[in-house]
């Protein structure tokens, strides 16, 4: 071998050894709960506390969208115990027989779950899912740069903000905004209504910089975008850094989204998963987690434990009349195709 080859080989071996060492140091030896969730979606200290109390290890794996996660699990990927999909996806996963029932006797803390929230959700009896964190989709804007702002979806009609606004690249959220603007349900199965909503969104599209799910947070913080369609929890985090960012729920109505804790049918550690759900709904733990994530945990006993600013936040706890205008996205099964068609036409329109 030439000396160069020796160096390269030595480099490769050194890198592999370093990685291996890392791996050995960090790899678990106790019973392992595999928690498949969004990044930064649980306070790390709470994970450690549960690990200590139950003599186990929690391995966090992350997914970036409900759809990619579902495609993977549906195709047969296994090994995960506990997941946090959004409720419309929970319904689909349950219909497909991918989930196991929740055993109430193992989760006594379910008595704390907010009944007011359960009334609007899909799995009202918590037979196969337990609500974890609750958010909503609405509009954020820069109060220092946008004049005469109205809390309404029609802001996307404003030509003076052309090129500085984004909406979510999500067929149900964005067509849903169109449906709400027209006064329809965002779960409409009526083709005529969906077509009308499509035309509204095509009109908005001419003023948008792009359809976008990730960069709108940094975009509104830096002033690249002045009005964005996005999720409340994220926007509250942006607001903590830049007080010029305000988030509103449009008067025509908005999306309530809840991520639920579910246990996969073939979960290797089902008992541990139940124990973890119970832990997360301990009022003290739920409150602590809400403070970390800036999302509301629908746990009634935890509300009084929240700090004043969260407790009085109109986004986390909308006043009654606004709360009534929120809607949860349902999976529409075969009628999904109507939205696919409308969304294709939105994308193709000039």
């Amino acid at each position, binding site marked *: 071998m*030439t000396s*160069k*080859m020796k*160096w*390269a080989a030595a*480099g*490769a071996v050194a890198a*592999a050894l370093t*990685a*291996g060492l*890392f*791996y050995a140091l*960090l790899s*678990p030896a106790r019973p392992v709960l595999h928690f*498949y969730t*969004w*990044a*930064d979606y649980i306070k790390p200290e709470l994970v450690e506390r549960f690990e200590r109390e139950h003599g186990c290890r929690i391995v966090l*794996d*992350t*997914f*970036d969208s409900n*759809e*990619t996660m579902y*495609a*993977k699990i549906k*195709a*047969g*990927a*296994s*090994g995960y115990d506990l997941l946090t999909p959004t409720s419309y996806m929970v319904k689909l996963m349950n*219909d497909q027989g991918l989930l196991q029932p929740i055993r109430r006797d193992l989760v006594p803390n379910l008595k704390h779950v907010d009944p007011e929230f359960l009334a609007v959700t899909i799995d009202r009896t918590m037979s196969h899912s337990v609500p974890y964190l609750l958010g909503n989709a609405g509009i954020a804007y820069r109060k220092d740069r946008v004049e005469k702002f109205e809390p309404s979806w029609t802001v996307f009609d404003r030509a003076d903000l052309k*090129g500085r606004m984004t909406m979510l*690249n999500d*067929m149900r959220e964005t067509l849903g905004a169109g449906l709400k603007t027209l006064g329809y349900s965002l779960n409409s199965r009526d083709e005529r209504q969906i077509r009308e909503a499509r035309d509204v969104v095509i009109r908005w599209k001419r003023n*948008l*910089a*792009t*359809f976008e*799910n*990730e*960069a709108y*947070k*940094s*975009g509104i*913080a*830096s*002033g*690249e975008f002045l009005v964005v369609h996005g999720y409340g929890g994220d926007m509250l*985090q*942006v607001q903590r*850094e*830049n007080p010029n960012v305000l988030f509103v729920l449009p008067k025509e109505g908005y999306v309530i989204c809840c991520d639920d804790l579910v246990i996969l049918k073939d979960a290797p550690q089902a008992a541990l998963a139940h124990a973890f759900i119970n832990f997360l709904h301990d009022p003290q733990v739920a409150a602590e987690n809400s403070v970390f994530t800036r999302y509301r945990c629908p746990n009634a006993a935890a509300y009084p434990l929240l700090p004043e600013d969260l407790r009085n936040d109109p986004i986390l706890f909308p006043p009654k009349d606004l709360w009534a205008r929120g809607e949860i996205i349902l999976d529409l*099964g075969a009628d*999904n*195709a109507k939205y*696919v068609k409308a969304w*294709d036409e939105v*994308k*193709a329109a000039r």
Partner: protein
Amino acid sequence: MDARRTWADEWLATLPSMAWLTVFFAVPLLVVFAIAFRPADPSGGVAEGWTLDTLRALDGAGYAAIAWRTLWISAVTAALCLLAAVPVGYGIARAERRWRHVLLLLVIVPFWTSSLVRIFAWKVVLHPDGWVKELLVACGLAQPDTLLLYNAGAVILAQVYTFLPFAILPIYAAAEKFDRSLIDAARDLGATRWQAFARVFVPGIRRGLLAAALLVFIPALGSYVAPDLVGGPGNELIGNKIAQRVFVDRNLPHAAALSACLTLAALAPLLGARGAMKRSRLPFYTILAALVFFYLPIAVLVANSFNASRYGGTWTGFSLKWYAQLARETVILRALANSLLIAVGAAVAATVLGTAAALALHRWSSRLQRAHYALIYTPLVVPEVLMGMSLLLLFVALGVSLSLWTIFLAHVTFCVSYVALVVLARLQDLDFTVIEAARDLGATRWQAARLALLPMLWPGIVAGGLLAFTLSIDDFVITFFVAGAGSTTLPIHIYSMIKHGSPPLINALSTLLLAVTFILVWVSRSLMEKHE
């Protein structure tokens, strides 16, 4: 040489890559393509029976416009990449020996950080109130309300940025071998500088140019992540559409049909087209320009790692808090360890398989090699989403539980093609008589390969291995499908963080990794100098 020995050699060199790609690529992919003829089931599965409806639906949904847009954006991307890569590759190859590998690493190292994070950094650079925009307005090149992002130009910029190293590496591998005295000879015989370049240099590295064009144009056809981030509402590419069909519409048959069409279209050049190439000069300045281009987002990334802001568009004060937080994030550190382990392993394995494949392809021109070439080339064009899905279905069907191993197998599968094409570029005009002479003088097959062949191939192998490492360490889509519980890699975690978490941690991590890499390069270089 007797015929039987050649025959045995050919199979020995061909079989590993061919068998690997047949098992992990061709068979699962054909199974997925067959889904195009099954009816869709709204829950994301496949219903019973067979149908041609999906194929009939392909003339709708504005596909013609999307296909045309994909084609021209990819073609412009490939042309721009070649234009920049020829002088850069040539310049690196001509640099002083001891600088050559340093330059090569300088060019490639930025691509070891997350592509997603770098695209975000571009957004900071091209901010509508940023200094680039102000400069353009001051020069009269833009109006105050011009948008630099969310148009076709921004998509091309992101694509060139992503694919330029894929063009530089094969051209470097080919140009390193090119005998410069040929140009001097041509000049002495009265050729102008341009004639010498066009008539002597370009034909001398044609394999490198061809490989570069393929490695940019073909993967660009199916890409969708960067176009999604910097494109506007009217810049959708075919890759976006395929991803939408799989995930949002849950219509696998439709996605399979689209991907099969794309694959067939991209296989057309295999039937005999040759690459026509462009030119450029001033290697030194283009290397400099390329480095500025590559490191501009890196500078933003490093600056943002010290920025107190969580969102990184504006400076809100100096802070080390992201570094402090990083030390506590075992999830990220574990993901990093996974990524490194896989990238090193996959790069080594793919380099071995790819090099053997390139040798076989170059040495023999039989029907077997034509099939072999098709098998090597096709993985470049198949959209990642479908490749990931097909591998997942394969592992599930075989009852293999997902783990780091399945990620390793998948990564080797998509890296082999890249390595083979880069090494192939190096093999142009290779003189096999040297090896035959060695064997006639009594060298064993192994000795001939080690002492005669390997040293000649070395720059190609290095370039191929670097490319494989680069691809592996940043792959998200395929990895996501085949990663098992507990085997999250860094890109998987970053994608989730971008949606839900705090990217500054990734800036801090990338900065540390870059620093460590540069220190290692510097140390090994000074050690090597002493050694020599």
